[in-house]
């Protein structure tokens, strides 16, 4: 799949607009540890969800030189 410069530029701009989640200290219990890990998964998913990408973009399952 070929991505045009315009499509790539639009994706980069939307990525730049998103904020990074702040780092936190270690949780006190296994339950809190798991909750903190789940929160990180959710935060990453939300970050990715907010990034706009061209509909034609296919997943990177193959690598080419």
């Amino acid at each position: 799949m070929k991505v045009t410069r315009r499509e790539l530029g639009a994706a980069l701009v939307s990525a730049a607009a998103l904020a990074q989640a702040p780092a936190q200290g270690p949780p006190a219990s296994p339950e809190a540890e798991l909750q903190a890990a789940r929160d990180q998964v959710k935060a990453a998913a939300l970050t990715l969800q907010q990034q706009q990408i061209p509909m034609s973009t296919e997943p990177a399952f193959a690598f080419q030189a």
Partner: protein
Amino acid sequence: MAKIDSDILFATIPELNKLLTSKEVSAVEMARAFAERLEQLGPRYNALALPLTQQAIRKAHEVDKEIKRGRLRGMLQGIPYGVKDLLSFAGQPTTWGAKPFAAQVFDYDATVITKLSAVGSVLVGKLSTVELAGGGGYRYAAASLQGPGLNPWDRTRWSGGSSSGPATAVAAGLVPFAIGSETSGSIVTPASYCGVTALRPTYGLVSRHGAMALSWTLDKLGPFARSAEDCGLILQTIAGKDGKDPGSAGKSFYYTPQYARPIKEVRIGFAPVDFAGWADPAARPAFNAAMDVIKQTGAQLVETKLPDFHYGAVISTVIGAEEVSIFEDFIRSGKVDQLADAEQIAGLKANLDISATTYLKAMRIRRLMQEAFRQLFVDVDVLVTFGRDKVASPIDQPLDRGTPAGPAPEDPGFNALIPAGNLAGLPALVLPCGFAGSLPVALQVVGPPFSENLLLAIGREFQQRTDWHKRRPPGT
């Protein structure tokens, strides 16, 4: 019997090869010297997972017979080495650094071990790794079956991970070279912290058959060694098509220093903020001096920016989704609770929540990253930055609690080059470049896919002008 002195223990592969082919030292003498040293000193650094001394001496006897008959198999013949303990060696434990897998034994060799055996290299031991190569994330250096990897330059500091044993063993002169792995940072980090030259190859160039899978689309195997040249010689042997690895790129690698581009023609992208803003202040003089050396080579330095993506969110999603698919039964059965690190246990469990939609979004963004890097490499030939911005952390300090030297710069520079380079499948060469106090720091040079010969040419040029890669930790 020839005396194996400390110069031999820290010799390069061509130097060792000369001793073997001139019969000044036999393969058995060399194997015995390194194997015994690894057995004796490996535990001092928590670097040794499994000694293979008897097997090594048997193999070395075969090599001596071949050399005696004039059957020379190249530079690696008779050279001892170690492998990270996530590579299978038939009939011997392969623990993946984790207690729940301590008794695991496979009946076949990893492809890299088969290839190295075919040219007469001598496996003297398996080396420690962070448990499951750090899958799920981990908070403490102690997240390993052997305990925390101790840095040969200062045993109160971490060796880095997850290829802790390979970096430590090479730095301390316990093996001439070692094979480690990287999913995101597991070669670059320990090589930087231990002051060792190392190469992360392009994704797919080296077969991972027989290696623990953590992330099918990110895992790579690569060498830790004494010099860029040694890395080239090793890569030539272990690279190549392998039908047993679905990720194999089907390409060979020929180490061709004689065809290297003149360094003056090479355009090196860099971000000044890396060394002026992100690097720990104590490490800046070493990094600045190293960049001066690069300038002196005549290479063209070009200020560059990395494509702006959320590399952290993408790579945590890709690794997270793939590792929980691989380890799903292990996690759901509850065996995961036997791991040493509470954050790792929680991380693996939580990653079960990653949806297919999120994973595919990450992989689609990854496609855009690859395209962005393809365009970046139109303007520059390689990128250079620090291996890590700080020296190795204290062994008892949580790894997710760094000590910021000041406010983070607004310009991200190349701070995300480790996840970015891994997501784009790019090769990286780590070059020791000095010290901050008593601890080593290093540069990483990253190029387009399959540009290993260019990276190695830059590495050779740098190492002809410096001797940081030849420094030895105190007491070794």
